[in-house]
């Protein structure tokens, strides 16, 4: 069942972008303007955070964003299930970013990439201590990166399920149903924001790899 759900997300992405860009009208149709908005939004974000030389990695970041966004919204269909609420999927995405960025940092900068951990503007005594903390925080990145996404999506669904459980009690069911509607609205927001947060953190990590000197 699970690959099928991811296939739905991928089909939706392909649908929006292939059908949307088919006309290439000067005055965009609705589908085309959705595609253009998403493209422009991510492109500007990559350019702002990573600089001009980060634009080369834009396709990867765009792919991540679209996959996460569409998988998140897939879960808002009742009785459905999101691939991104599974820690296995997000861990692959998070560790993928981590390895890609680390390898890229060493390829681009050589040993100078280790300067990321050595704060040259800190007092000399503090530098080794800060370096240890920086190394730990660097290796925790993929863990927090992936757990944040999976945790948020899973937590939202757990809350919806708790409210759905209350809806079975006649006395509180109006409140519970109103609660479900409100939480659902919040989830629409959270799904978009979490996709955005995952992508912008990828951009920040990429910027660290491209320009390791602080």
């Amino acid at each position, binding site marked *: 069942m699970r690959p099928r759900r991811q296939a739905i997300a991928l089909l939706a992405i392909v649908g929006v972008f292939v059908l949307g860009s088919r006309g290439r009208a000067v005055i965009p149709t609705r589908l085309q303007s959705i595609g253009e908005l998403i493209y422009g939004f991510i492109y500007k974000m990559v350019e*702002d955070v990573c600089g001009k030389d980060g634009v080369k990695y834009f396709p990867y970041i765009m792919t991540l964003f679209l996959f996460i966004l569409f998988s998140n919204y897939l879960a808002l269909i009742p009785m459905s299930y999101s691939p991104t609420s599974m820690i296995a999927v997000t861990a692959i995405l998070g560790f993928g970013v981590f390895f890609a960025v680390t390898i890229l940092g060493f390829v681009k900068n050589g040993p100078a990439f280790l300067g990321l951990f050595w704060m040259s503007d800190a007092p000399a005594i503090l530098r080794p201590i800060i370096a240890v903390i920086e190394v730990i925080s660097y290796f925790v990145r993929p863990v927090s990166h992936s757990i*944040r996404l999976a*945790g*948020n999506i899973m937590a939202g669904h757990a809350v919806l399920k708790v409210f759905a459980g209350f809806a079975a009690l006649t006395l509180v069911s109006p409140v519970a149903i109103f609660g479900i509607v409100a939480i659902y609205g919040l989830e629409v927001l959270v799904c978009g924001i979490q996709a955005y947060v995952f992508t*912008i*953190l990828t951009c*920040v990590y990429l910027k660290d790899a491209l320009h390791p000197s602080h």
Partner: protein
Amino acid sequence: MEGQLAHIGAGLAAIGSGAAAIGVGTVAGNYLAGALRNPSAAAGQTATLFIGLAFAEALGIFAFLVSLLLMFAV
């Protein structure tokens, strides 16, 4: 007895969600305070806002994860 203690631990870990709520509120509130003083600079800082929100929120999610582990995995 062990299982019941795990449930108490899960409840205690849920306090972390409240702490994360304070953190998220601080980030958003300070952003708003700054944005109202200098609205022209606000648009450029939304990315920083969301990164800050994400970091504050992630710790709450970790607390949630710990309580889930205590409830279902331990």
